[in-house]
């Protein structure tokens, strides 16, 4: 029988014991707070400044002719005629270079007028524009090329991976001998770094000594395959390598999904007289919808983050014809000393990913309320 006298009410050590779970989580909590959410805010802040080589924590500001500027100038005595002329400068971007701004003004309204109203013009057209970097971004040809490439890359990458993955999964599901070995072979590329994959495919697609040479040796003398250095086709080489690497993963997902389908449903369909392709088309594939969704979400995520593969395969080239947002960001933030500009591209990537992931996670978490 236990000694009742030893039992006592809640003391200090009991409260300490209650706190232990929270103490254990504390480092991770701090890490998440600082290194994830804090850093995101920090990058967001940089993206609204004009930071170039070094961070400059003032909101992007400079000189720009805006409607508000014109109105204020009018109120303060600048004549209508001058204002009308200045309107043409509205579409010019913000600039923090006073001299360049004044030069453009001079070109528009002449030296004399500029001199007369210089103070007023400068005072009222000095403005802050947090979206400065973002506007610059979407005016940048290179960024638009990167976005276009992302669209091409993502749709081909996702489409091909899913098509091939599903096809192979269905075939693999047909009670194949040595299925385990086959699966191991299809999946091994996932274990490799994108750099290794890129290095291999860079060699295989080598303009002179790779596929081109091989096919020529097989008799097709005039065959060329220079996609790697062809600015129109470079992005497609990235697709080839990425699909090779990631198909196995999609295959694994679909195989697991197929295995989870209730046998009884298929038997019922057979009793109803349906043929095999019809069963697949009308029953099995539709019931894989959640797997499709997972696959698309994860593949999109991989596509948007694609950096390694492009860097090793084409470096974004030739020129910037195979650039993607991730390589764009790195180039400007780390190589070209344009921190604010790079940060804005990073924030754009972040927003796009969040727009896809958050609704998905929200619906998943609502389904499985493991309280």
């Amino acid at each position, binding site marked *: *029988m*236990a000694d*009742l006298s*030893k*039992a*006592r*009410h*809640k003391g200090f050590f*009991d409260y300490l014991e209650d706190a232990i779970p929270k103490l254990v989580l504390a480092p991770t909590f701090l890490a998440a707070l600082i290194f994830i959410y804090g850093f995101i805010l920090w990058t967001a802040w940089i993206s609204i400044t004009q930071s170039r080589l070094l961070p400059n924590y003032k909101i992007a500001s400079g000189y720009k002719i805006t409607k508000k500027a014109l109105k204020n100038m009018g109120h303060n005595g600048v004549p209508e005629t001058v204002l009308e002329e200045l309107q043409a400068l509205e579409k010019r971007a913000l600039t923090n270079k006073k001299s360049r701004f004044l030069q453009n003004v001079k070109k528009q309204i002449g030296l004399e007028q500029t001199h007369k109203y210089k103070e007023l013009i400068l005072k009222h057209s000095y403005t802050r524009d947090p979206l400065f970097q973002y506007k610059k971004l979407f005016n940048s040809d290179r960024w638009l090329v990167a976005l276009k490439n992302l669209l091409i890359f993502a749709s081909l990458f996702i489409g091909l991976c899913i098509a091939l993955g599903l096809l192979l999964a269905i075939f693999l599901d047909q009670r194949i001998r040595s299925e385990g070995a086959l699966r191991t072979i299809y999946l091994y590329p996932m274990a490799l770094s994108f750099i290794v994959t890129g290095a291999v495919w860079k060699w295989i697609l080598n303009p002179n000594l790779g596929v081109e040479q091989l096919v020529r040796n097989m008799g097709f003398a005039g065959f060329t395959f220079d996609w790697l250095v062809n600015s129109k086709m470079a992005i497609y080489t990235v697709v080839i390598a990425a699909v090779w690497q990631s198909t196995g993963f999609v295959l694994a997902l679909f195989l697991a999904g197929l295995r989870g389908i209730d046998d009884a449903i298929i038997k019922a369909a057979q009793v109803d007289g349906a043929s095999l392709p019809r069963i697949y088309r009308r029953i099995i594939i539709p019931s894989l919808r959640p797997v499709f969704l997972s696959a698309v979400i994860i593949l999109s995520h991989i596509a948007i983050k694609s950096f390694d593969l492009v860097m090793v395969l084409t470096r974004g080239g030739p020129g910037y014809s195979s650039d993607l947002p991730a390589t764009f960001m790195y180039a400007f933030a780390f190589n070209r000393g344009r921190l604010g500009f790079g940060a804005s591209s990073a924030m754009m990537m972040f927003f796009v990913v969040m727009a896809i992931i958050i609704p998905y996670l929200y619906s998943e978490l609502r389904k499985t309320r493991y309280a």
Partner: protein
Amino acid sequence: MASLTITNIKKSFGLVDVLKGISLSIESGELLVLVGPSGCGKSTLLNLIAGLEGITSGEIKIGNRVVNSIRPKDRDIAMVFQSYALYPSMNVRQNLSFGLETRRVPKTQIEETIRRVANMLQISELLDRKPSQLSGGQRQRVAMGRALARDPVIFLFDEPLSNLDAKLRVEMRTEIKLLHQRIKTTIVYVTHDQIEAMTLADRIAIMKDGNIQQFETPQQIYENPSNLFVAGFIGSPSMNFIPCRIANHGQRKGVFLETGNGRSFFLPIEQSGLNLDPWIDREVILGIRPEKISHGFPDQAGNPQIHEIESVVKVLEPTGPDVLVFVNINGKEVTCRANPNAVKPPGEPMKLMVDISKAVLFDPQTEERIGK
């Protein structure tokens, strides 16, 4: 001195009130069963007694100690779980000794205790096996052994037999009863199975929606249910509820039973202490157990409380020792118990003897028993 005293316990999870004010007390050596449908709060109450959850308000005393804020390990309780909860990486011996080792009990005493407990539960040959190598019944015994080894003031059982198949469940039930008779420990036992409740309990607390509906011995609950819910919950097959009207018929008060084909029988209801005057011409619900409507009560000839009626047999369900006869009375399906040799086939009328000495009446609005 009461072994366990619960005073006005309330428990809420957020906005949901799971326990709405529970009070009871049990004596040392009693086996209390908490029984009720899922969601009634019985497992929550058990967790509160164990200290695995905190109470929202109220008081729990074990012995004469208020244990509200005392940790489970210091409350001198032991618990047996529905899932057995045996530590999978330890063998049976280590499972039994774990709680003792954490309490720094000397090694020799631990070994002695394990030997004693293993003998009592006949698990001595299993001491070196791991839980994954045991059958369901064996695991259950080890789980009980772990609790016994601790020799606590109160044992808590949380639906321990629900994971066993039907046959094993009956065997283990008897074993638990025998164990309780031998070592006379105080037990709080939670189950949803009313048969377990009836066979094991010294007293039963029937719970519904966070309240105790009735707290008495099994026999009292069986014969004197305090409301419609209790009456319907205990007993299998369950009590018949026949809607009737209290009538005055030739100086006697009672009910009319319409058994189909236009036939109607008057049953006088005369029980000491039951005043039906306020209920004349009002609707009531007559509760009568199936075994009280039979082909005959041979050893009760001359009992004025037994009356004869006749009804058409709808369905017969043989159970082996007897047959359940389903008839229609007052528009309701009524179950009766009869000898297999004395029944008539479906569609034919059959004479039935009704023993209304133990019948109970309920107010249809409040569902309370009339004349408690």
